[in-house]
């Protein structure tokens, strides 16, 4: 008898999740935001499996974005922001890949990308916004015309049009919907019935998940049905939007997970040092990604002291007094 019979067919490890749902060329949405709730366990596994030509669609991304680009897995991205706050004003491997012409990219803003995911989640082809009027985001397309003919790429980056409900001059930007092949989400809880609960800020994770054709959810804990259904106001996604459920404690390390662990400033500073040039970057990948077989091994390598240092205070949600220099 399986431990979790209701989700038996969806429970798997990161390796299987990547093998089953991610292909060369997949269009992938990454959940989380800069230094928080990045689906790192899946990102590392994508690198280990040597997936190529990924088309990333994201708002503000940091760690997972930079690792995937740095490992050569990414061919293109639609992006609003590539940075890690104070730990990397601009992500290093992202910066270098763009400057060397190694990836194609198209710039949007955070609100625009979030609204594009919302449109995809609602099943509408576009959504209007006033954001971006007059900016070069709207004037300059990043992708060459041949890419625009592909099924999952918007035929136009934006359409600027007149509001048909207003007789006066009233311009509005129409944003094309996004429907990625796969969304990668890291959550605190998944119920044994498959219900997903994200604590703290949800960023655009729920819209990303609902806009995608397939959803991989990694989680810190699998919790009883009786718990997840006692206060369903707090839940984020019903089971029927989730294809793979992967239990990976510290699955977002070195990024944070509210009420579980803080961002690992020490590791992010180390990453910053290593990501700066190609030689040290290769060494980082060899040691921290290729050099470990699993996230468990990765955590063992980090060690208990490092994990305990970032452990969140479960009431305030972060690691009080943590040295974040």
């Amino acid at each position, binding site marked *: 008898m399986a431990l979790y019979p209701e989700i038996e067919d969806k429970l798997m490890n990161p390796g299987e999740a990547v093998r089953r749902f991610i292909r060369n060329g997949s269009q992938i949405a990454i959940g*989380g*935001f*800069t*230094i*928080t709730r990045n689906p790192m366990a899946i990102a590392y596994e994508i690198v280990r499996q040597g997936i190529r030509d990924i088309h990333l669609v994201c708002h*503000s991304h940091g760690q997972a974005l930079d690792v995937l680009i740095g490992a050569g897995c990414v061919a293109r991205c639609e*992006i*609003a*922001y*590539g*940075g*890690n*706050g*104070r*730990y990397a*004003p*601009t*992500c290093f491997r*992202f*910066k270098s890949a*763009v*400057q060397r012409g190694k990836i194609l990219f198209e*710039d*949007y*803003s*955070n*609100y*625009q990308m*979030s*609204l594009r995911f*919302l449109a995809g989640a609602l099943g509408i082809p576009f959504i209007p916004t*006033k*954001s*971006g*009027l*007059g*900016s*070069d*985001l709207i*004037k*300059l397309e*990043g992708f060459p015309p041949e890419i625009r003919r592909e099924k999952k790429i918007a035929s136009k980056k934006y359409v600027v049009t007149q509001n048909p409900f207003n007789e006066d001059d009233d*311009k509005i930007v129409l944003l094309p919907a996004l429907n990625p092949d796969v969304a990668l989400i890291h959550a605190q809880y998944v119920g044994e019935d498959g219900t997903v609960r994200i604590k*703290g*800020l*949800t*960023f*655009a994770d*729920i*819209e990303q998940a609902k806009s995608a054709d397939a959803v991989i959810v990694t989680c810190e804990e699998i919790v009883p049905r009786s718990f997840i259904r006692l206060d369903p106001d707090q839940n984020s996604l019903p089971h029927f939007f989730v294809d793979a459920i992967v239990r990976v404690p510290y699955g977002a390390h070195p990024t*944070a997970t*509210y009420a579980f662990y*803080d*961002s690992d400033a020490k590791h992010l500073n180390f990453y910053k040092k290593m990501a700066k040039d190609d030689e040290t970057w290769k060494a980082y990948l060899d040691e921290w990604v290729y050099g470990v077989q699993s996230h468990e091994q990765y955590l063992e390598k980090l060690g208990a002291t490092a994990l305990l240092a970032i452990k*969140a205070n479960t009431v*305030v*949600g*972060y690691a*009080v007094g943590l040295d*974040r220099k």
Partner: protein
Amino acid sequence: MADYTDNEMMALTAGRFIKNGDIVFAGTGVSMLAATAAKRIYAPKAVIFFETGGVDPSLDEIPMAVADLRTMSGTCLNSGLIEAFSIVGHKRLHTIAFLGAAQIDRYGNLNTTVIGDYHRPKTRFSGSGGACDVASLASGVITFMQHQKKRFVEKLDYLTSVGWYDGGDSRQKLGLPRGGALAVVTNLGVMKFDKTTRAMYLAEHYPGVTVERIEENTGFAIDTSQAKESAPPTAEELRILREEVDPQKLML
């Protein structure tokens, strides 16, 4: 030489623009200091929020990024980006945004995307993030800059975030009925924008900074006829900034 840093002067100077009732959009770095200082010193009834969806956090510790767990602790609402940006542009709210940029022009338009050609840039920066959104939608924008010729330019390499666009009423003509650039706070002084032409002018130069030095470090002609010397920070302002806003000295 007074005993305060550029960051301290910039944070306090920007903080003074915030009024009670303002809804303040804070980014990382100095803007995080400025927003927190504003609430602790000048406008206790201002609300600080983050594009990530955290509204009015307790900020017992200063966040290192807008997704830092400290932006979601003790808040009145934990939501997401769509909720946050709908607040930025909400017609009922007076929203002030703090931004930073790599380049700024005389009309307060900002570049945070590239130096050089867009498709094959000499330098790639992080990109818009929420900057383009708040520049389009907020009631007003205050920008932090290092005051250098290469950053105050005649023409931006890339226009990420619209300020007063081409000046005059060109912003409204774009279809952006409200907002625009309120002020630019640098390590040398404070620039504001003419009510009619919307061109940048020098409003304040910090104690010990000459008007000439600012002119030399600005890549376009700037009106300095209304320039006044700023008051230095008081001991109490510095105490609150150092002991309450950033006691861990993460950004000071």
